């Protein structure tokens, strides 16, 4: 593995993932300071792509950069450097030229959730497991600000940090075949939202009418890593009307 110690800023090091991807490492543990930094570098590259840049994949502590070495090497003579090394140096220089800023962090996004009942069939199970009442669970789940550490698992699925540890509940032993889109669940010490219908083993405590994934929109995905969200309890009777508003008169 050709990881290197680092000279610049917040970059820990890098490693190659095959000959067409390099992963930049920002740290070695989950840290709320990292996702905004990753997003910062991702934006830098988006606005000033190097020749051959294909795409980036952000995760907890890493940004994987996929590139075409043929295009890169056709554009630049990189000498004896490996392409991975060249890209790492390139990013280090880009970062030094840019004043580090987190200006893009917008307000905390509020996600309305109908807790319990048909929308959160496992709320009672979580209550039994934690020894808390349903209303106490809702209170604790809605009183924290969650940071989106990364997106993954499903299109538009956020990995959230910040769940009150007292709400931790193991996932189901047998995954459910169909978890409806918008379901808010708890799995171990994590909480998350299913952006689309899929199989899943999380304990479902509620559901949001907010579309997290809508390919018809100019911005098809509501959430992104580095962003902060809060959950807000919503009356069950408002679910359908809210959903209608979000989707307009679309027939889907």
């Amino acid at each position: 593995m050709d990881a290197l110690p680092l000279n610049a800023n917040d970059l820990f090091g890098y490693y190659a993932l095959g000959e067409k991807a390099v992963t930049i490492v920002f740290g070695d543990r989950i840290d709320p300071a990292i996702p905004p930094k990753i997003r910062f570098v991702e934006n830098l590259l988006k606005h000033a792509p190097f020749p051959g840049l294909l795409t980036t994949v952000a995760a907890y502590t890493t940004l994987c950069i996929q590139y075409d070495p043929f295009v890169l090497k056709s554009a630049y003579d990189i000498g004896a450097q490996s392409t991975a090394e060249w890209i790492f140096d390139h990013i280090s220089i880009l970062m030094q030229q840019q004043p580090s800023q987190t200006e893009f962090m917008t307000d905390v996004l509020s996600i309305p959730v109908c807790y319990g009942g048909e929308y959160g069939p496992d709320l009672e199970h979580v209550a039994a497991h934690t020894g808390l009442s349903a209303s106490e669970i809702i209170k604790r789940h809605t009183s924290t600000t969650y940071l989106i550490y990364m997106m993954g698992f499903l299109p538009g699925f956020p990995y959230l940090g910040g769940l009150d540890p007292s709400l931790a509940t193991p996932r189901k032993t047998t995954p459910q075949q169909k978890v409806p889109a918008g379901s808010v669940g708890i799995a171990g010490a994590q909480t998350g939202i299913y952006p689309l219908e899929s199989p899943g083993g999380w304990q479902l405590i509620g559901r949001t009418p907010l579309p997290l994934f809508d390919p018809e929109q100019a911005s098809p995905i509501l959430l992104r890593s580095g962003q902060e969200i809060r959950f807000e309890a919503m009356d069950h009777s408002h679910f359908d009307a809210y959903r209608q508003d979000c989707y307009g008169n679309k027939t889907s």
Partner: protein
Amino acid sequence: MAIKLLKAGPFSSIQDLGRLDYLSFGVPKAGAMDTLSVRIANEALRNAAQAAVIELTYAQAEIEILSDMLLAYAGQGAVLANGKIPLPANRPLALVKGTRLKLIPDGMGCRTYLATTGGWDVPIAMGSRSTYLQAKIGGINGRLLQNGDILCATAWTTEHQSFFTQLQQSNRSFPLWYIGSGRNLTTPDIPVIRVVRGPEADWFSTESWHKFLSSAFEVDRNSNRMGYILEGHDIQRINKAELLSTAVLPGTIQIPGNGRPVLLMADCQTTGGYPRIAQVAAIDLPLCGQLKPGDQIYFQEISTKEAEVLYLDEQYYFQKIRRAIDLRYYTK
């Protein structure tokens, strides 16, 4: 310029080279499994690299040509036939209205790619035409192709027309030139897939690494476009650390807790938490896209540098091919 799928066959879908813009949002790349064959079929028609093709699995599809048009196909495991006459792969085919084509099984492999002028005309969904079933996006309404589907070519220029006429006048419906794939799957030998060490390769003992490189692995029947479960030798970890979810790519080989390697393919998730023992070299990933349950493979280690040289050589090859084909289209 259109075709009708009289029989779509199993798992047929519209694909291109994949959806790259939303990986950081958890949207898989998708795209064709055998991107080399896609490239050959598209180059034969001088299409853009991202032109959409039809990915046909196994050899059950039947197609009716609804208007005079140019097609090209490439892949493994089937030949396209006009009635009983097999048509050659890896080159343009001038087909007249009313022709009925069908795939006939032929040798190893299981995916055939059908290209047409400008690509097949379906809407772009989130930056790509690739069908991704789980999110119901790409292709025709995010679904597999069905019997009766009609698909149209995106482009038909005067150049296409004159090339079509030229082929018709030669009493053949195809030229004698073709694009070589450099691939030889006709031998009964087990294919050797070249890999580079993965970021967590040192989480495994030297013995496990050697077993990984010396064992024949069989593609399990629970394998699909997301990835292949490989049966052969279970790989045990020595480092039991917990890996924080991080990027994985098509071609990444992960070792889950049961020790059975998983080779990730086109529809794989964007991130994963299992140690990545190896990454398939880009030059050999398309070949993996031709594997089906029961097929066997060996892995061979090469350096990142060697993998890059192989990749660069392939790009130079296609650069030359493109110039050569340009000449053949323009010369009367």
